[in-house]
């Protein structure tokens, strides 16, 4: 049976969240910066028109930004996460099958809805999301996830589509015409590198890719690219994943507000990141078999001495115990740390994650001590969930957080803190 899949995503998500709570921002170019105000990670259409690139280091744009009055905001993830949840739960009402693909986009299965006018249905989604959240979205519909992505892309780029594009019921020639106008590199799953390789073989456009021989593609590019070819031809190969599979790796890292050189600050930050990572690990009922710790100086400060290093340690017994993970991480940090460098970033990663339930029993660890650790960690997580983050933490996280990240221009947590909710003031209409 032919499937019908929609991809809905929020336009310029982070910027749109900021604008929903601060309408003044609607009339000027706006960008949102990454952690530590490093790079541009979201741009309003006006900022895009000024030529500000995604991922561009902010210091490179500053002069131009001042000239054109670009408002640069620090990222406010508490706000974005809450608004994302609102959008996703609104969309969940539109289909029994939903795959939340990222913070600002999700797939909906609309198979069997085909009789309905899908453009009208998409318009209903758009209207409701805008009414309930103030966020603008685009809706793309196609027979596969890849085609739904392309439809969404077309809806976003051509004003005449009004943010809605349904490729599931258009004529073949029409679809081919649209695919011809699209570069192969713009197709979902084809990166810049692969696009260059495709080009070398004469595959320039999405239409070329659609018409390519799947067997040849499989031999030259592998099975993933072959699936993309089938998907472009309307055969579903990548199904909806309604429950996200547990992650195989967990990362936790940040840039520091100000560079640090002392071991104490680095150790405190590593402890914090490892505690966060361990909490996520327990949240998905996994244990880690390998940990990695890394530190580095700023690659942008060319006048300073550069150093970066990492260490990977396999754990004797896979664990989810914050205390053990932190102990190993600090052991590694001690071995890679060198004094007199200005470190700007540190991080940890947990690897080779396996399900806690399927963890093999170990000859050297008594089951009793592992039960006690599980109970302790569960209690810590529960207290922190109830009383607020970091109510209970390891002392090595430290209490002085002078190394923590810079967030020079962060908006209030409008929806997650009573102290910071939106304030509505009387204007000068009084007389």
């Amino acid at each position: 049976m032919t499937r019908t899949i929609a991809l809905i995503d929020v336009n310029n998500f982070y910027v749109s969240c900021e604008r929903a709570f601060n309408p003044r921002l609607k009339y000027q170019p706006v960008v949102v910066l990454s952690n530590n105000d490093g790079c541009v990670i979201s741009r309003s259409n006006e900022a895009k028109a000024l030529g500000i690139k995604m991922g561009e280091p902010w210091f490179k744009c500053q002069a131009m930004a001042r000239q054109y009055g670009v408002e640069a905001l620090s990222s406010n993830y508490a706000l974005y996460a809450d608004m994302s949840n609102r959008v996703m739960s609104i969309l969940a009402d539109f289909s029994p099958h939903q795959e939340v693909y990222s913070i600002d986009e999700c797939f909906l299965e609309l198979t069997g809805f085909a009789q309905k006018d899908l453009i009208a249905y998409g318009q209903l989604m758009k209207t409701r999301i805008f009414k309930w959240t103030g966020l603008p979205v685009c809706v793309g519909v196609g027979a596969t996830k890849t085609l739904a992505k392309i439809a969404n892309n077309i809806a976003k780029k051509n004003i005449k589509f009004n943010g809605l594009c349904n490729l599931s019921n258009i004529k073949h020639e029409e679809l081919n015409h649209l695919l011809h106008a699209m570069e192969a590199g713009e197709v979902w799953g084809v990166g810049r590198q692969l696009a260059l390789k495709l080009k070398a073989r004469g595959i320039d456009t999405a239409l070329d890719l659609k018409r390519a021989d799947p067997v040849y593609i499989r031999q030259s590019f592998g099975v993933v690219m072959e699936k993309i070819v089938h998907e472009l031809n309307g055969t579903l190969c990548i199904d909806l994943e309604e429950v996200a599979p547990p992650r195989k790796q967990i990362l936790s890292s940040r840039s520091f507000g100000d560079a640090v050189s002392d071991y104490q600050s680095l150790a405190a930050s590593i402890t914090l990141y490892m505690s966060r990572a361990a909490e996520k690990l327990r949240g998905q009922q996994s244990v880690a078999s390998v940990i990695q710790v890394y530190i580095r100086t700023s690659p942008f400060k060319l006048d300073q001495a550069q150093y970066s290093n990492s260490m990977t340690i396999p754990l004797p017994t896979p664990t989810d115990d914050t205390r053990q993970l932190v102990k190993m991480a600090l052991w590694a940090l001690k071995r890679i740390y060198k004094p007199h460098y200005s470190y700007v970033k540190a991080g940890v990663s947990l690897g080779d994650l396996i399900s806690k339930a399927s963890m093999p029993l170990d000859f050297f660890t008594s089951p009793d001590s592992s039960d006690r650790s599980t109970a302790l960690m569960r209690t810590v997580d529960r207290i922190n969930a109830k009383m607020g983050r970091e109510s209970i933490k390891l002392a090595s996280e430290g209490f002085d957080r002078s190394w923590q990240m810079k967030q020079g221009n962060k908006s209030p947590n409008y929806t997650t803190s009573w102290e910071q909710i939106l304030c509505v003031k009387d204007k000068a209409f009084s007389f």
Partner: protein
Amino acid sequence: MSPLDLLRSYTRKRQTNVAEIFVRVSNKSADIPFFGSKVSAGFPSPAADHVEVRLSADQYLVKNPTATYFVRVKGDSMVNAGIYSGDVLVVDRSVEPSIGQIILAEVDGEFTVKYLGQNQLVPANAHYSAIPFDEADTVALIGVVTGSMRKFP
């Protein structure tokens, strides 16, 4: 026995199919989970049939959590509607505003709370003047104020 211990012991029983549990935690509020139980062995609790969800302010004030936002008022332009400076208002964006309701509107890039009148936003204080729609060219009706909260020191 704390509610959590109790819940845990029930969960343990559930694994052995002795008890059937219904856990309902209301959306984001911190009230105690409600559970009804059906334990096949032993004397049934006479109260078990009468357990209901404990009242919560959330449930009273918020009908549609997905579309509800809280805003704090600064100023006295709505005092005669019982809205004082410092009050926290419940704004439901999913309700279609109609004339006579108190609404959150966006005027010239700023939010304001007023009565919705015929082509105008009307304050509830004689010291303020109404804001006609056609004069302010950028007026958007954001949502309906469906409730108000105030704490006493």
